[in-house]
């Protein structure tokens, strides 16, 4: 969006300092990632010391049953929590952007809370909630408790992304469709849905990534046999670091970077017409 009168670049020394600062920021962002990738190929027990090229740590990763189990857990949890969060979050976004209803403001605020609340606080909330629930009902912590917690924060992120898309689309298109005798459902199915699809997909990928990445909340609500990959890695780091962690980290890094890049790409893409 073009603003009236863009800010012009200052002249003289300031200009060079600004340039330098920006380059340094990008170096700061990406150098640690590059270094981590390099050392994941290092043949040395010490994680930060170069000892010649090796692929052993990736082979260890592929042979390590607990890690593969944790990866499977992570994927299952991410898929289920994303699917539910996308449906609930999209409906919430539609309700907030296109309708008025009683309690709308409270709902709006409630939707923002899971985004801004610190991880630790939410982890404590879920821990005590399930602990209290366990006194009344019989259940073991694991898949269910993790998925429930992940949906709770993912709904908010999905709805924020979908709302941004809805706010940018013209409501009159739906009205026009209905004036042309489309039913409400038809107007939604053939006009609104295609318009907001990039938002829904972007939100879904974001939710999927967040679910895959979460450590703190998951650690508090996981049960026997249900450690996710980040929780497992976090445990390894605290027990004592091995180069295996470098390799696992790089795999996680590549996966989440691809997902986010895809998400950004889809959100930016204009809808087909």
């Amino acid at each position: 969006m073009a603003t009236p009168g863009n800010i012009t670049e200052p002249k003289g020394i300031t200009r060079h300092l600004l340039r330098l600062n920006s380059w340094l920021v990008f170096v700061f962002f990406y150098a640690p990632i590059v270094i981590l990738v390099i050392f994941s190929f290092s043949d040395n027990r010490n994680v930060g010391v170069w000892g010649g090229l090796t692929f052993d740590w990736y082979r260890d990763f592929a042979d390590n049953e607990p890690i593969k189990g944790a990866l499977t857990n992570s994927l299952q949890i991410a898929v289920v929590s994303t699917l539910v969060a996308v449906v609930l979050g999209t409906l919430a976004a539609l309700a907030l952007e296109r309708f008025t209803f009683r309690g709308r403001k409270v709902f709006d605020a409630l939707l923002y809370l899971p985004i801004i609340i610190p991880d630790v606080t939410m982890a404590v909330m879920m821990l005590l909630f399930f602990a209290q629930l366990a006194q009344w009902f019989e259940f073991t912590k694991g898949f269910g408790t993790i998925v429930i917690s992940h949906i709770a924060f993912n709904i908010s992120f999905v709805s924020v992304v979908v709302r941004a898309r809805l706010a940018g689309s013209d409501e009159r298109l739906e009205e026009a469709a209905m004036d042309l005798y489309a039913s409400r459902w038809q107007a939604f199915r053939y006009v609104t849905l295609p318009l907001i699809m990039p938002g829904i997909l972007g939100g879904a990928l974001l939710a999927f990534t967040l679910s895959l990445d979460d450590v703190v909340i998951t650690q508090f609500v996981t049960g026997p046999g249900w450690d996710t990959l980040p929780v497992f890695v976090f445990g390894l780091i605290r027990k004592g670091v091995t180069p295996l962690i470098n390799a696992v980290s790089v795999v996680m890094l590549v996966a989440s970077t691809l997902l986010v890049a895809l998400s950004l790409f889809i959100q930016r893409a204009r809808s087909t017409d």
Partner: protein
Amino acid sequence: MRTRIAGVQPPRQATPEFEAANLRQRKRRGLLMALPAYTYLVTFFALPLLVVVVYSFATRNRFGGTDLSGWNLDSYQQIGNELVRQVLVRSLILALITTALCLVISYPFAYFMSTRKPVVRNLMLVFVMIPFWTNFLVRNYAWYVILGTDGPLSRITEFVGIGATRVLFTQTAVVLGLVYGFLPFMILPLYAAIERIDGRLLEASRDLYASGLQSFRHVLLPLSMPGVVAGSILVFIPSLGAYVTPEVLGGAKTTLLGSYIVTQFLSSRNMPFGAALSTVLMVIMLTAALVYFRRGGRTL
């Protein structure tokens, strides 16, 4: 699928009755659509939040469990203890340092970004966003590798002649990890605020003989204040509640509020006290959020 014949509908008339009925119907549909997410968040977010507050007034029993009776304020009084105060003060200081560093680094960056062509801007935005959503644990772990004994940083300082360094497990390492983790939270709102500013205002101030510094102090800074406030809150809150960073990069003397709260649940088994600390953190967070939304902040 049933086929639907676009039948003859009665012509819509904008009578007051029709308008009122229409509005009522829209309200009902809106509520119906919001209901699933609403119910979910009340059950699995608002209710757990309430449980934490309730627990903070409960009593810890001898077995490390919690008795939901004999309500009292003991847990809140415990916050006044010397050790707890130390943790709180340390967390506040480190969170403030982190916020200040992020602000100093991000402001010129966001300003520079706003002076670029749209194509470059968007590209820069993408490269800021990628670390924003990549695995937080992994990004902290990368610093573990860099800062450790005989690690790359130590090698560089040795080479330069300062001698071997070990930054890992110090407060410096924690601040570094926090700045690294939360920098995008500062850049994005700052950029959103600065990008919106009409550049002609800055030029006008210069035309009226303001120095670069004066123009910044009296024009740019006041106009970008919403971004400064939003970014500071978005960095300060998660820094205060940080748990992963001090666990990975910090040592025994760098316990922060987040890790301290976790300890109350996982090792000390003093749940009411942990709940009280969480409540305090939540109140700080809500106050900050209120300021944020008052300032018209909307997006991350």
